[in-house]
């Protein structure tokens, strides 16, 4: 399919993160993960649970263009309940990362010294708790050596190395799944829990990925699969679920 865009590929890669998850809360951050979760729920992960972003779980599958007053809300889930769900483990979040490192530590808090940052970002938010309580994936729409770094400035989401070092309190339910970027898909299926390239997006070379990554990626010298394209049915769903093509605005190709 010649009209498949990089954003479409990224959306499929995000959707695949939730495959096999069953009845868990899918919490996507960013338009591409939001669309991916909806696509997954529409197809191979029908039991996923979505929220209205305020204080309710929603019934059915809203599109990215559905207005809040059009949502069908099925149960009341204020923030106190959200934390109960986080700590129960019945959630798979896909957060964004301003920085992500070789062991999957994530930073959304600040660039530079925490006491006086060069750039203040959103803050640790719920990342420390999310990452040690339930499945966690990341979406990085601009893969470059400043976003894929050897070591993050402020650890918000906890990576494999630090979870292991903190012991079973942190590692028991730590479940780092995948990182999707505009260049490829990355997981941590290595003996030491370091990042590995799982697939490269169509049209991207492995040299590009290596040059855009601030550390040595496992598997980059091997046989790397190409990230799959949407099926025809999925392509139709993408158009239906994202009628204003918000996904295209988020991805630098």
């Amino acid at each position, binding site marked *: 399919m010649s009209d498949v865009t990089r954003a479409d590929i990224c959306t499929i890669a995000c959707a695949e993160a939730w495959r096999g998850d069953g009845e868990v809360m899918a919490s996507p951050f960013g338009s591409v993960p939001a669309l991916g979760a909806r696509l997954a729920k529409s197809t191979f992960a029908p039991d996923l649970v979505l929220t209205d972003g305020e204080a309710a779980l929603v019934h059915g599958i809203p599109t990215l263009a559905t207005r809040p007053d059009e949502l069908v809300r099925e149960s009341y889930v204020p*923030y106190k309940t959200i*934390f109960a769900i*986080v700590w129960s483990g019945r959630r798979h979040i896909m957060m964004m990362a301003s920085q992500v490192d070789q062991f999957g530590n994530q930073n959304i808090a600040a660039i530079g010294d925490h006491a006086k940052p060069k750039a*203040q970002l959103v803050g640790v938010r719920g990342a420390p708790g999310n990452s040690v309580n339930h499945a966690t994936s990341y979406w990085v729409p601009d893969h470059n050596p400043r976003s894929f770094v050897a070591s993050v400035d402020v650890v918000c989401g906890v*990576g494999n190395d630090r979870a292991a070092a903190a012991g079973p309190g942190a590692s028991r339910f730590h479940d780092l799944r995948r990182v999707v970027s505009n260049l490829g898909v990355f997981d941590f299926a290595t003996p030491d829990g370091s990042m590995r390239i799982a697939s490269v997006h169509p049209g991207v070379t492995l040299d590009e990925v290596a040059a855009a990554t601030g550390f040595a990626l496992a598997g980059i010298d091997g046989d790397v699969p190409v990230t799959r394209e949407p099926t025809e049915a999925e392509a139709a769903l993408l158009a239906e679920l994202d009628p204003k093509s918000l996904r295209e605005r988020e991805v630098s190709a």
Partner: protein
Amino acid sequence: MADKQTTVSAMADEIESGMTLGIGGWGSRRKPMALVRELLHRDVTDLTLVSYGGPDVGLLVDAGKVSKVICGFVTLDSIALDPLWRAARQAGAVELTEVDEGLFYLGLQAAAWRVPFLPARAGLGSAVQSETPAFRTVANPYVDGPFADPEDAGAELFAMPALRLDVAAVHVNVADTAGSGMVLGPDAHFDDLFLGAAARRFMTADQVVPAGTLADHGPLERATIHRLLTDKVAETPNGAHFTANPPSAPRDEAFQKHYAASAKDPETWAAFKERFLSGDESAYQSAVETWRSEQ
């Protein structure tokens, strides 16, 4: 039955330099902004703010009232970052104790339950722990016996300390004179815990009604603030402006945008403060009305 009515100004009188002040709401949602605005005019300094941060934090920090903030974020929701907060942080102007959102909840809960800490997995391995060495962990005491879970036998857990507050301030849609409060919007957030964690407890409201009549204004289960949680109540219509306070008022997105745009530049920020924040609350509300009519 005591009549707890007072004024926002009288509440501000009780907030002294060096105190720890907890502010209810979440981000740019249902913040006690009238009280925050009143504090901008006071000579109080060296406050420690405990907040799910929004423009309350940005404004008080910018005005030099604050030496320390305990939070997990400072956001305007529809705008990711409060520009005043960004500027203060990048200037190193304020000390930040950064905690996970859920740990923050546990810290308030611990204070409200009068226990020194509550354990969690959250925080372990993250910058919450490494940036604040004063935080401690606790060993799981259940290593054997009938309650032991072998999977957690050797676990160290994060011990979130009680976030004890000198003063807490929250804003609700409707309060009664005896100090009960009703939140009619989608989420009462953690306001009950802010109040429970504080020595002195203030509730502002768009409307204050006679004691015992809250149920005339909405479903009783929305009256989540009972009067054992409050000391003083003050009526201040539209007192959460410009943060979201449905159904009384949605977030004033246009005005929030104007606030955020103005705050990015010293000159436009000075003009904003002169126009909107130099007078009292009624001057603020009418300046906003005038601004709106010009748009």
